[in-house]
């Protein structure tokens, strides 16, 4: 199997799975013995670029150190061989942190696009670094922290206010009556559960809110697409009894109505959700009251 991988660039493409030995092409190994095969497997899986020319790309990364606050933030260039690196931007970041500059600071956890830690601005777009493929054609990839956020260090934004806003919409089930004795579940029909699809998957990475110009100018009082998506998620949950009160809490010029359907949020969501539509649905439900 490793020989197949190595011979990908060669002219001899058809290698029978059972006949591994002799290929007259660009591979370095003419015959393989079991021990040699183990070695090639090991070196191939270690990400060696033994048969590929190094594909070196530049990463320009925003750096700022709070321990030296007088030093202005700046872009630092790092060279990374993409053939010795995983495909995602997070792989490059970890590689840089491991091999070149251990002081480079960024949040990351799951490396699979579910935790929302590695949200950052990659070449102008807010996404998760673990889901953003490195552009192999571009000579330079720019990494910035999420726009218009206070920066704790390098690529780490301060999301405190974002979380406080999330808390303000009361993102938990609220029932008017206590469950009756013996009743353990809150029943919900399949149709009602379907309404939550596209809303519950939000991982609160803050990519959408930090892409919204209205949130840039008015983050104090405008809740932003992420929080409003979750507000809508609780509003239309059939198990929740406080939908009306949730809508009433947003009756002011700022919490919802700073949205002017710019739709940057939907464009940038790394999970493919549609906060813009959720906000429009909130406006519609509020209008009809």
């Amino acid at each position: 199997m490793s020989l197949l991988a190595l011979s990908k660039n060669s002219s001899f493409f058809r290698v029978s799975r059972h006949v591994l030995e002799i290929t007259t092409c660009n591979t370095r190994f003419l015959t393989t013995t079991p021990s040699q095969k183990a070695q090639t497997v090991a070196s191939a899986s270690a990400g060696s670029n033994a048969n590929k020319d190094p594909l070196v790309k530049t990463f320009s990364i925003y750096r700022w150190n709070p321990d030296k606050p007088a030093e202005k933030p700046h872009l630092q260039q790092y060279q990374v061989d993409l053939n010795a690196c995983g495909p995602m931007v997070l792989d490059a970041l970890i590689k840089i942190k491991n091999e070149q500059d251990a002081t480079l600071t960024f949040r990351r956890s799951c490396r699979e696009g579910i935790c929302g830690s590695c949200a950052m601005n990659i070449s102008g777009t807010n996404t998760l670094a673990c889901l953003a493929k490195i552009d192999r054609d571009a000579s330079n990839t720019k990494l910035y922290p999420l726009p218009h956020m206070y920066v704790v260090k390098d690529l780490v934004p301060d999301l405190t206010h974002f979380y406080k806003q999330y808390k303000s919409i009361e993102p938990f089930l609220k029932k008017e009556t206590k469950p009756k004795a013996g009743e353990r579940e809150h029943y919900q029909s399949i149709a009602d559960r379907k309404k939550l699809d596209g809303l519950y998957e939000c991982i609160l990475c803050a990519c959408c809110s930090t892409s919204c110009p209205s949130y840039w100018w008015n983050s104090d009082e405008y809740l932003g697409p992420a929080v409003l998506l979750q507000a809508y998620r609780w509003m239309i949950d059939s198990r929740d009894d406080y939908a009306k009160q949730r809508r009433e809490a947003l009756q002011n010029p700022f919490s919802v109505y700073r949205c002017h359907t710019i739709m940057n949020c939907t464009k940038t969501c790394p999970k493919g959700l549609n906060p813009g539509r959720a906000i429009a649905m909130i406006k519609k439900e509020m209008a009809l009251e």
Partner: protein
Amino acid sequence: MSFGMLSFSRGFVFRRGFHLSPFASGFTFHRGFRNASPNNNGAEYIKGSVNEAVVLPPRDKVAGSYHWDFERLLSVTLIPLTIASVVKGGAHPITDLCLGVILPFHCHIGFDAMITDYFPHRRNPVLNRSFSWGLRAVTLIVLYGCYEFNTNDVGLTELVKKVWHA
């Protein structure tokens, strides 16, 4: 609560070293003293502790959904009105009257949204007030102007027609 040395360079440097993003604006030195509260690590942009929910603005349906409803109502009314004034060949005093009332209000609401966006009251109280009153004055003048133009001159529809075919 002493804030130690705060340097006024291109931005503010908070005591614990939070860097003000180059794009943020509006946080003044004095505001920090007034909003000083515990357990937010010295960050002045966090009101209350980091574990407290944000306090939503006071509820006001007029400024909230009623305003939005009214704005959409005006926009929706303008669609058939504009089409009618384009299509209609003959006398158009009614469409002129409607346009002369609805258009200034529609534009007023639009500009008011811009003022609320870029000069919100909590951040720029003086500019907000002066622009808002200026806008109201201008809207009144435009309303009067439309009335004058519709009664003593050719009217809005005719004006557009003349400019279009000029």
